């Protein structure tokens, strides 16, 4: 299971970092939860995230919005995803770092945190039923367009 989760994480990160965002919703079950929050909000019991999607279609809408509607400066992410830690038979936590490189060459450590995942195995195909992105910081520089 660990190696399958690690492989899923690698494919997930590559899809985002290679700007294949259209593939990103496919990593989730149709009924899912994807949320970006922070450790402080989790501790305080705050339910809201800066991104909150409870269906694969909502994730797809976000990708269409990023491509067609939203305005932001060209940028890329590099996800460095750590080793998953099993927290149950179908759940795991995995640390990550994201370096953001801007159009003008500026690079920042944009986010650090952990993925808290619930996985779903459908005929051998592993997907996220739930992916809570728990950032260590509640601060975000400028804007968050590309998903974490």
């Amino acid at each position, binding site marked *: 299971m660990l190696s399958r989760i690690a492989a899923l994480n690698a494919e997930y990160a590559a899809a985002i970092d290679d700007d294949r965002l259209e593939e990103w919703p496919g990593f989730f079950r149709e009924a899912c939860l994807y949320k*970006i*929050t*922070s450790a*402080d*909000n989790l501790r*305080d019991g*705050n*339910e*809201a*995230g*800066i*991104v*909150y*999607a*409870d*269906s694969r*279609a*909502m994730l*797809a*809408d*976000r990708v*269409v*919005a990023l491509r*067609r*509607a*939203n*305005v*932001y*400066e060209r940028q890329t992410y590099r996800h460095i995803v750590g080793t998953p830690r099993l927290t149950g038979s179908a759940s795991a936590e995995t640390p990550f770092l994201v370096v953001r490189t801007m159009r003008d060459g500026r690079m920042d450590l944009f986010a650090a945190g952990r993925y808290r995942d619930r996985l779903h195995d459908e005929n051998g195909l592993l997907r996220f039923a739930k992916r809570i992105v728990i950032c260590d910081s*509640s*601060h*975000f*520089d*400028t*804007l*968050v*367009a590309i998903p974490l």
Partner: protein
Amino acid sequence: MDQTSLHPSSTTRNGLTRVPFHVYQDPALLDHEQRDVFEGPVWNYLCLEADIPNPGDWRTTFVGRMPVVVARTESGTIAAFENRCLHRGSLICFDNAGHARDFTCVYHAWRYGLDGTLKSVAFRKGVNGKGGMPDSFRPEEHVTRKLRIATVSGLVFGTACDRTPDIETYLGPEVLAALRINASRPLTVIGRFTEVLPNNWKLYAENVRDTYHASLLHVFFATFRINRLSQGGGVSVSANGGCHVSTTLAPEQETDTAYDGMRSVDDGLRLADPSLLDAVDEHGDRVRQQIVSVFPSFAMQRTYNVLAIRQFVPRGVDRTDLNWIYLGYADDPPDLRRRRLKQLNLAGPAGFVSMEDGCIGNFVERGAAVAANASSLMEMGGAGTESQDTRATETAIRGFWKLWRSMMGM
């Protein structure tokens, strides 16, 4: 006037329709603004009453760059004071929030009451008869800087100035009414995030008052053919200019052509999951989008069922912390709370109709990099600061500058 003053021709001929770019760029203005704006005759948003419900509860916040503690005292009143120890200037409280019987500075254990009054000085009489403070030292002669408090329906505001008018006069009837509707039931915090803006705080203060840009920069609604500029609504500006409420009402008819020729692509795109915008008219007023601003650094929004506060804190001449406080009502039924969580995709640092505001101020900073003596231009809707029944206007931005100029003497 020296070179950092407003360009004479722009102040006299064009009045409030011109703002020279140096006012966003001059580091010296930061101290001037701290003294004459943030610590001047204004009401600064501090926190929610719900943040400090019980005696001993406290929260740290800011008045401009001044660190402030807000606390609920033993008698149940709210007190706020500068978060600076009278001894050596250390922060008295250095976390976001907590509960205490009193406050003790960690540096040398000077102790303060919940209202910020100095209570005791460690080793005042020395140790074993040696050292200690001189006999002439009187703790009561050392007074923490305290703020005067006003609350509006659970929102706590503070002022450091004796001349500040009462908050009802300051806000004006329209802004007051909008805030009272927003806070008509007990508020509860459901999320807190900070967006670090790479721009001067006034560029963001303008942005929240800029009803003209909303549908032009943020084309999410137009792209998915959700609403149109020709929906009803308008802008009310307070008499002092500094506060406003802008409202967009849900349309009575769904089709029109007010967006023809705009950047948005009108090719029949639709949301794959329209439950994002599955809203209820919880106040029975057809308000679909509303922004309320309170000079200098507060805005509150309603977007569908999203309820959020934005507090902007200057961190330097070209850096601003934008604190997002996502709200619900304490008695939200689960389905309404879920709507808020989903609709919050519209707001905040990753919001479909707000993420652009995170970068647009920096685009101005960079575009105007060597334009200190040139001016931005704001003539939409005329040259005044009166309320208007259209959002194709810059009246509320001119209102901001009217009050800012009067306080800065510029």
